[in-house]
């Protein structure tokens, strides 16, 4: 018994263990409910199936969450990503809608470049507030979270801009090499971010800034630049997610696009094991976290539950994952388990002391 336990310890102790268990549980539940859930088929050279759908739909969230991971690793938080999604989507769609030929590749690329550039500016704004002026990240990005939403509506004049552009639509629903284009984009961005952080020293420097900003400064780290950079990267990721979301529905709604995506992204990061206090970050964990959130949403749709009611499940999952990962909860659980046979008086006493 104990040897099995000891052998399993490195597995169960791995930070991805519980998130992965959660993901598997969700997939199993879906399969039980609908046995065809796991099947993937090739139609017209494109892969189809629930699993593919889940990955495709989680692509925007993965993108936003990747940027968020870096921001959170520096000890910050970016609440404005939802607004950036809305603004970038709105700018791109507005520009395309004003083109004589909405299908011209040149027009679409110009639109993307324009929207991307604006998103980078918004990211830089956040970065300047945090790194140069020294405002707390949660407040600094709250500004753009509120104002950015208004900005997006200003751009769309409060309307929903509908476009009819095949190249743009491809970003959301197209296919490449049998796979949905969105998945490929997410994959490429993931690889870029991973290479950017782990093949260079950026990851370690980010972690050192998040772990101890003053010590990093005294070690000669250019913390300001790094902080500014992560907010720009976060906004860039959000912009790409914004293109994907608006391309999915071929329209931009300044009010609804990317609504609450910041919360989902933060959740994905936290579920993935990155601490909100900053320091070590785990991109693989973040991706698993994003997949969990999307699987949950998809399963709820599949089971014909009102999407809003799905929030109930989300709440349960969030609390469950956070509790399992919380050291305080684990400590309690372990203590109760190990002390269960002979109730140790000191432990009991300590427990009673806690509320006082």
């Amino acid at each position, binding site marked *: 018994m104990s040897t099995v336990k000891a052998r399993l310890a490195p597995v169960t102790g791995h930070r991805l263990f519980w998130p992965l268990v959660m993901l598997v549980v969700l997939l199993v539940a879906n399969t039980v409910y609908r046995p065809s859930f796991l099947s993937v088929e090739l139609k017209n050279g494109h892969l189809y199936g629930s699993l593919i759908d889940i990955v495709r739909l989680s692509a925007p969230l993965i993108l936003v969450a990747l940027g968020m991971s870096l921001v959170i690793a520096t000890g910050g938080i970016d609440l404005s990503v939802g607004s950036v999604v809305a603004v970038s989507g709105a700018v791109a769609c507005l520009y395309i809608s004003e083109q004589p030929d909405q299908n011209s590749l040149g027009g679409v690329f110009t639109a993307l470049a324009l929207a991307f550039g604006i998103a980078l500016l918004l990211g830089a704004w956040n970065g300047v507030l945090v790194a140069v002026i020294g405002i707390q990240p949660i407040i600094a990005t709250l500004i753009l979270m509120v104002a950015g939403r208004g900005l997006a509506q200003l751009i769309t004049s409060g309307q929903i801009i509908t476009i009819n552009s095949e190249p743009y639509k491809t970003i959301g629903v197209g296919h490449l090499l049998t796979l949905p284009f969105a998945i490929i984009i997410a994959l490429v961005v993931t690889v870029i971010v991973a290479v950017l952080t782990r093949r260079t020293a950026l990851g*370690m420097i980010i972690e050192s800034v998040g772990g101890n900003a003053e010590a990093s400064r005294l070690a*000669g780290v250019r913390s300001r630049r790094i902080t500014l950079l992560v907010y720009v990267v976060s906004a860039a990721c959000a912009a790409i997610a914004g293109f994907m979301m608006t391309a999915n529905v071929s329209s931009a709604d300044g009010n609804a696009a990317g609504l609450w995506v910041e919360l989902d992204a933060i959740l994905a990061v936290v579920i993935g094991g990155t601490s909100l206090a900053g320091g070590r970050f785990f991109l693989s964990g973040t991706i698993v976290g994003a997949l969990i959130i999307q699987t949950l949403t998809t399963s709820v749709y599949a089971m014909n539950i009102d999407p809003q009611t799905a929030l109930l499940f989300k709440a349960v999952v969030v609390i469950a994952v956070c509790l399992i990962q919380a050291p305080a909860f684990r400590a309690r659980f372990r203590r109760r388990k190990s002390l269960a046979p002979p109730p140790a008086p000191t432990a009991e006493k300590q427990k009673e002391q806690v509320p006082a």
Partner: protein
Amino acid sequence: MSQRHPVLTMTAISKHFPGVRALDGVDFRLFPGEVHALMGENGAGKSTLIKVLTGVYGTDAGTITLDGDQVSFAGPMQAAAAGVSTVYQEVNLCTNLSVAENIFIGREPRRFGAINWREMRRRAQEALARLDLHIDVSELLGSYSLAVQQMVAIARAVDVQARVLILDEPTSSLDADEVAQLLRIMRQLRDEGIAILFVTHFLDQVYGIADRITVLRNGRLVGEYLTAELPQLALVEKMIGKELDALEQLDSEAGRDAARAAEGTPLIEADGLGRAGAVAPFSLTIHAGEVVGMAGLLGSGRTEVARLFFGADRADKGRLVVDGKPTAIRNPIAAIDRDIAFCSENRRTEGLIGELSVRENIILAMQAARGWLRPVPRRKQDELVQRWIEALSIRPANPEMPVRNLSGGNQQKVLLARWLITEPRLLILDEPTRGIDIGAKTEIQRLVAQLSDGGMAVLFISAELEEVLRLSHKVAVMRDRQLVAQLTNDDSLDADRVMQAIASGVRQEGLEKV
């Protein structure tokens, strides 16, 4: 005095933490109207004993009696209610509240259930008057100096009809005048019959005020002594528990040749460098291969000088000359560019990144200098880290272990390694041997001597005069944020002369005019 009954007795106290036996059958007693110093090196169990006493921790074994009744407090508040109050090293008050509130929060005077602010202010004024402190109690605590905040903490502690007052290193952030006032207040409280448990690292304070000394070592009781019957050297031996000759060896090795070091163009020269509110303008020259020791009391401006050299704070007066050329060092990056390195005295807050591994911490400064786009190749990292782990005998020798899991001495070595791999020409060490065990201390001292023999300039800051004298070619003496003397470390220089310089602030004979 010992005819009287002790107000507090702790008998055979034991406390375990996972992997550590923090207290092992420790006895302790405290008489009314006495100051009892609790002494021991880091890790001796002083703070654990205090936490057990005040109910922060439960005991595994042993009893505590207060006035003959056995007690077991559930927490500091209950302890305080029973007359056992604690003042901690860091002022543990809320700077965002008024002085009056800080004294009374949790037990505010109330009328009809509502807090009676006027009564609270009146009583706060009274409580502070008892300590001879007359300030506006409705002001925010944060607008007063640290010393005043410490006094307010004591006022809070004694206001609850305290019979036992625990002062846990209350003087470590105070200057000499403030310490004098604190000791005066302690005497006054003692004369009022309060029993004071006093924890401090300053031996002269112990001999200045304590009636009795209890020494702990490695969680065990070494003994209880009357101060008058315990010479200082004996106390140090009991605290450290081993012979001091490990330190003495260095003397022969170093063989500081003062004349040799000060030749040629200075590596770095501070010319009227200063910063308002931190340190008065000073001039100081450091040559390659020279160890400049910096002596002075805590808060005398030693660290501030170091920070100006490193650009951690920006100077607002004077200039720095590096290699004979005037150079502006506005930030650490500029300093590192000039091959200057700085090991801060606060390893945890200003030195290491606890979460990152030993390897990452060692590589950090080198990597930061290269920029993140040019990572140090992993093989080179491993090579460098392995070499320095061996050279400095960092234990455990696991480069991937998070650095926060290392002991203080090993953390200090990691910090040293971080800077040594950047091959600096000037190494600034701020209290590198504080709070680490004696073995690591000797190793670090030996390393400093070696580095200087190899041509590195070192600015060595330490509170321990012996250490400064042993290592330095030249001793710069700080007092009240001024550089008051620069003494060549020849045969005629001894601790007495340095202390004289610290105490009088008058420039001494044999002063080097630079």
